[in-house]
């Protein structure tokens, strides 16, 4: 559709968009080189001789420890024990050196950088038209305002997807080139007290998707602020401030009040439901979080569209 092409062209006719992609690529390259360098420095080869015995020993200690640990940490220890048992029975030694999968797993943290860049794009895509004054010529076309805003929103999502794809593919290529496929194992996920072996690529894709839930929500929030306040610096500033401070403030509140679980930031990280990290408030479930996120998401979109379609353009 022409509108999407327009928005895409407007993003990529500006240098800042390329700078963002460049920064992302540079971080991945630097990380790969840095890890290679550190690895070559302390190249401690584990005693491969009898790893089964070592794991059994570890499990024994952990079971002992389990008796004295308080509730929240129990699960993690149980997970390690289960994983160790699985490794012993399936003859899968622990991955001791970096390979492409561990690298890609590590690079998943860069989804936050992608989120940051997408927020900048989302914050600017409506507000910039107002500050450039081009909004007037943009809206006096035989196209409804809702369609124009929708094209902008889809463009933001496509941009995020594009950046995520770059991150995924680049970290795969660099990971393969720098670290290779040594000790190629499936991922061992811990679900309902069971260890399940999963193929790495689908596992990593699902992890990326889960990490991107926060990205989607915060981007939509930035987009809403952009469309409602028509000021890009406000949208960027407010969204990044919330992105950085939101989870801290929420975890503080969560220490005192139970209603913290209804706050956006208590729900944006879905990874704990799939076996990594801890929940901000005890007793939350995946479906609860999804519903809360959905409610916020709908509110953001409704406000964005309402403000953009209904308000007069006086800029």
């Amino acid at each position, binding site marked *: 559709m022409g*509108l999407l092409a327009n928005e895409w062209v*407007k993003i990529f006719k500006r240098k800042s968009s390329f700078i963002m992609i460049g920064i992302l690529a540079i971080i991945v390259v630097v990380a790969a080189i840095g890890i290679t360098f550190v690895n070559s420095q302390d190249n401690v080869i584990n005693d491969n001789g009898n790893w089964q015995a070592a794991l059994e020993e570890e499990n024994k200690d952990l079971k002992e420890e389990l008796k004295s640990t308080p509730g929240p940490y129990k699960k993690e220890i149980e997970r390690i024990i289960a994983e160790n048992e699985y490794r012993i029975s399936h003859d899968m030694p622990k991955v001791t050196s970096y390979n492409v999968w561990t690298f890609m797993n590590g690079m998943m943290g860069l989804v936050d950088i992608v989120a940051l860049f997408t927020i900048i794009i989302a914050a600017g895509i409506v507000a910039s038209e107002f500050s*450039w*004054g*081009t909004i007037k*010529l943009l809206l*006096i*076309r035989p196209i*409804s305002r809702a369609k124009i805003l929708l094209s902008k929103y889809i463009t933001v999502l496509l941009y995020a997807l594009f950046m995520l794809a770059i991150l995924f593919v680049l970290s795969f290529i660099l990971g393969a080139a720098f670290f290779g496929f040594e000790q190629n194992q499936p991922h061992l996920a811990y679900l309902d007290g069971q260890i399940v072996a999963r193929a790495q690529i689908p596992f990593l894709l699902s992890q990326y998707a889960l990490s991107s839930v926060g990205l989607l929500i915060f981007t939509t929030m930035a987009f809403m602020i952009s469309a409602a306040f028509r000021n890009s610096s406000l949208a960027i500033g407010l969204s990044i401030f919330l992105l950085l401070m939101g989870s801290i403030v929420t975890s503080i509140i969560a220490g005192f009040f139970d209603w913290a679980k209804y706050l956006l930031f208590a729900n944006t990280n879905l990874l704990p439901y799939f076996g990594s990290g801890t929940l901000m408030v005890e007793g939350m479930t995946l479906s609860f979080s999804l519903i809360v996120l959905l409610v916020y998401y709908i509110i953001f979109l409704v406000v964005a569209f309402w403000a953009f379609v209904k308000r*007069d353009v006086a800029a």
Partner: protein
Amino acid sequence: MIVVSLNNVSKKIGSKTIIDNLSFDVHAGEIFGFLGPNGAGKTTTIRMLVGLMKITSGDIFIDGHSVKSNYEEAIAKVGAIVENPEMYKFMSGYDNLKHYARMTKGVTMERIDEVAELVGLQNRMKEKVKTYSLGMRQRLGIAQALLHRPKVLILDEPTNGLDPAGIREIRDYLKRLARVEDMAVVVSSHLLSEMEMMCDRIGIIQNGRMVDVQLVNDMVNDGNISYLISAKPVDQAFNLLQNAFEGVEVKVTKQLLHVEGASIDVPKLVKRLVENNCDIYEVKQINQSLEEKFLEITSEKGGIA
């Protein structure tokens, strides 16, 4: 044929009435000037015309389509520049036009080239808009407005920032569009002399109300005609003319006779002066300029002109 029609259009922001029951029509093939002091509501009216602002009450019809209820049909017939011709500065002129072309059906690549040539930008189309002068941006703005062959062209202050040659060029160009392509052109300005030369009809707006709509020729020449006579001795000439003719008023300003009246018989007047040994150096008809007329009208109807 009426192309643009405003019916009792009002705009309220909060409790303040910005535009109060405005009605006027614009016909195909005419250039309609929209004249008023700053803050009178020109830009607000234009914004309502193109749908950037909601109409509080009343309605606007463009080529028979209501802006309120059938916006997409109505706006498809409109090409406009609202205030400054703001374009995407980081893109070339060509990319800007392509951008707008993608938003309307049936604008071909040939049409873009055609329009670029029409406004004389064909050699600069590959350059970024930030390198353009204000005049070139203005022309690119007009090119953008003409892309989809609209029936109405709406220009807010089209001669802003143009040099005299550019102003003349735009003026001739707009006249050609109106005469040849039978387009209705709505132009707003506070440059009165400019409007006088460009427009066929002028609507004067003040405090959100249409004070007067007149044909430019009528406006300039209606009613009294005055003459400036340079004669010596002035006192004698003044005495001769005063009370000599019915309905003629004579004043002396700066050693010149200022004669004003509805029907002045100039030869008779001159004859009387010559017969009485007055030397006449010059007799000149004064066209009351639109500016004076404009100030006169706006102050007559009770307001700050």
